[in-house]
């Protein structure tokens, strides 16, 4: 497309992006701002109502995260061509995967691909394949893997995240698909034998990646992977601090969600993500300094922290922001960034095992609910929200059982209003055509009521 045909805000975005630095990728290559803009543009033009909000076209560096999200499959294919193992990982052990010289694809990009292709039949087949009570997307992702749509050498899953590792359970019918399941022991915190047990499994897991790449993975390589991931996580901690440093956050809810999901569930290239974060952080600092407010936000918006599951669709962000609020968090991503570093010096298997057993709190099979509550209270104090909501997705049992207790405790300890919302189906992901972005009437009504309460409390 000729630039003259672009609407002014896209011209402006181009100008802003071209003034920023390139993205440095894990393999040493770079992506220029021009390429980042052109890639984004393709998706924006394919987007039926691309002129509409909710995107903040004035925040140039967030389009680097969008670029990373959109190109994850393509980049994975290229890496595979170069001989790098590619894993499908359901949030499991990115430090070790990256350290083993491999890359990973998480469930969200697959879900995006399925939704963008409008592959409803795959979702339906997925439900028939498992049960209508399953998570709406996971069985479809399993079928996507079955059909060889992803360049994946190994699929890894860990227990404790979902009831039956759905994807592995479905794919075991196909012996040609390589699978690995890591058992994270329940209640394993503080038990040396649980640490040893998990570390031992991680050894076997890394050995398997080594077999795929054709050479043994060294401890030093793994420590390097941990370092890369730690640096990426620290760039998020810095981001969160900048976010919280202003009365009006310098980034809107949708962009915030995008930036964090890239680092949490799609962390296939921690070097690139850290690079994007550092540039974004610089831009946000500048915004805070100059008092620049994202176009969709009102001044001093109602701050609503999101706990539970991750899926909050663009219309929900738009609606909340139009009502004078912003969604913060979400907790499930913050847990990856605010749970501290993985030890970089000792035995890398033990270090990663310890992080999962003793540090990460969200949906953890190892830490007890009281600890999780304390972690949440501490995180909420960091964000200082006006209210907290819990979301749950049909069929997902990772988090909903805790919601009532956590909400009760938040109200008791912080005096904050809370609300639990159940989603009967999964909203389509945030890239794609606007027509399918939906927000149900009952959600809208409940959120509206909740925000009225928050407004009234603030006025008091």
């Amino acid at each position, binding site marked *: 497309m000729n630039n003259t045909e672009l609407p002014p805000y896209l011209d402006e975005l181009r100008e802003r992006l071209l003034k920023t630095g390139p993205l440095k990728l894990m393999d040493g290559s770079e992506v220029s701002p021009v390429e980042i803009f052109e890639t984004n543009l393709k998706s924006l033009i394919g987007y039926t109502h691309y002129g509409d909000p909710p995107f903040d076209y004035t925040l140039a560096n967030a389009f680097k995260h969008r670029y990373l999200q959109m190109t994850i499959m393509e980049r994975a294919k290229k890496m595979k061509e170069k001989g790098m193992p590619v894993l499908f990982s359901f949030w499991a052990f990115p430090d070790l995967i990256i350290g083993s010289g491999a890359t990973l694809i998480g469930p969200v990009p697959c879900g995006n691909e399925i939704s963008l292709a409008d592959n409803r039949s795959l979702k339906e087949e997925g439900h028939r394949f*498992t049960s209508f009570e399953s998570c709406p997307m996971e069985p479809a992702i399993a079928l996507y893997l079955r059909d060889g749509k992803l360049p994946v050498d190994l699929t890894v899953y860990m227990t404790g*995240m979902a009831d039956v590792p759905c994807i592995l359970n479905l794919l075991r019918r196909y012996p040609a698909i390589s699978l690995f399941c890591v058992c994270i022991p329940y209640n394993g915190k503080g038990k040396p034998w*649980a640490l040893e047990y998990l570390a031992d499994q991680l050894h076997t897991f890394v050995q398997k990646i080594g077999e795929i790449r054709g050479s043994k993975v060294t401890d030093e390589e793994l420590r390097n992977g941990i370092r890369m991931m730690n640096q990426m996580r620290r760039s998020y901690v810095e981001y969160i601090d900048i976010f919280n440093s202003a009365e009006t956050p310098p980034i809107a809810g949708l962009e915030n969600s995008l930036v964090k999901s890239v680092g949490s569930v799609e962390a296939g290239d921690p070097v690139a993500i850290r690079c994007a974060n550092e540039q974004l952080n610089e831009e946000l600092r500048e915004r805070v300094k100059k008092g620049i407010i994202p176009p969709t936000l009102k001044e001093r918006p109602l701050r609503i922290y999101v706990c539970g599951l991750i899926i909050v669709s663009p219309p929900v962000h738009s609606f909340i922001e139009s009502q004078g609020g912003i969604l913060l968090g979400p907790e499930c991503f913050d847990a990856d960034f605010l749970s501290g570093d993985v030890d970089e010096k000792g035995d890398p298997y033990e270090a990663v095992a310890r992080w999962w057993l003793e540090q990460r709190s969200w949906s953890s099979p190892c830490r007890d609910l009281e600890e999780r509550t304390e972690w949440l209270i501490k995180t909420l104090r960091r964000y200082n929200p006006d209210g907290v909501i819990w979301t749950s997705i049909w069929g997902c049992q990772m988090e909903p059982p805790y919601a009532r207790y956590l909400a009760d405790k938040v109200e008791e300890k912080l005096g904050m209003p809370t609300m639990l919302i159940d989603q009967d189906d999964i909203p389509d992901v945030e890239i794609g055509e606007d027509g399918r972005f939906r927000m149900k009437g009952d959600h809208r009504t409940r959120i509206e009521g909740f925000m009225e309460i928050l407004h009234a409390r603030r006025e008091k």
Partner: protein
Amino acid sequence: MELRSLKDIDKLLESRKEKIKKEREAGTKVVGYLCCQVPLELIHAHGMMAVRLGTASESYMAAGKEYIHQYTCPYIKCVAGEMLTKGTFLRENVDVISGSVICLTVHRALEVLKAYTKKPTYYFSIPHNPPDSNDERFFVSEIEWFSARLGEISGTRLDPQRLRESVALYNSIRAILKELYRLQAMDGSAIRWIDVFKLIQSGFLLGPEEYLELLEDVLSEVKQVSETEDHSSNRKFRIMLSGSPVMPMDNLIIDTIEETGGRIVADILCTGLRTFDDLLVEDATLKGLALTYLYSSPCASCQDLNLKSDRRLNKMLKLIREIPVDGMIYYCLRFCDPYSFKANEIKEALWREAGLPVLPIHWEYGGSYGSLQTRVEGFLESLQERRAKL
């Protein structure tokens, strides 16, 4: 016919509640447990009383939903509802909550119960993958840890002799259950599966000594009646029941099968066969106990990446060879993912490996009896056609 020895089970259970209250007053602790891989011998050896948590009830389910979310299986909602409703027997009398955890929802439930009740809660993890030496080491340590926690609560140190006695007691119980189970499956048996199932569930509350007495009495009567009466006219369809836990008081699926021309003769249920099958402990030490439970009949949450070596599926096939059946009804409680997600797989595998028809039923307490009856009747009609062709 109803056996004399089975007539007074309900009275026995009621009087057991009174006994538990008295023993508690005398200082004995009550350990409430979930699911079927908690070594009851260990609780007994520490001088404590074990009672299994969970009673099917719509009111408990409604109460449980308030604490543990509607997207949770009815079994766990009932457990939560019963334990978190003031005045229920279990809420008032359970001192310690414990569990063997492999199912995520059971884990969440135990955490929620611990948080709300503030009762001491000790649970250990069961390996998900097929056991190897790493799993064995881990699980032995878990059982040692569990024993130490029981010791702290009861104020006892585990006495090896006491453990041997407890193991022997539970072995006797399980040996009789095994024999009764074998007998009920025979044509003309004086005892039905439904009776044995009720007996198994009585053991969730009864003390092992009185439970053994009851079982001995029942076995003796069954043997006498079987020898003197002829029941060989039984031409009902022989059904295996599998799937999600069928809790005490959850009788609808059982009654529907039995009333529509089926006769349950086998099960692989967490509240049935799994509670005693493969659980005869030969080495009465903590290690021996741990390894017996580790290799016992697995939960559907176990994750074998190789379908052919799947222990649970192979267990079903073995059971079908031992106890011939005409079909299987696979009962899936709503949001019971471990069992529901494997329903289609089991259906395909049993048909492929054993030519056995399987009817998966997805169900929630409070569902319509009519729809359940229609499905079961349809299945039995298909079995009738099959039988006619054969």
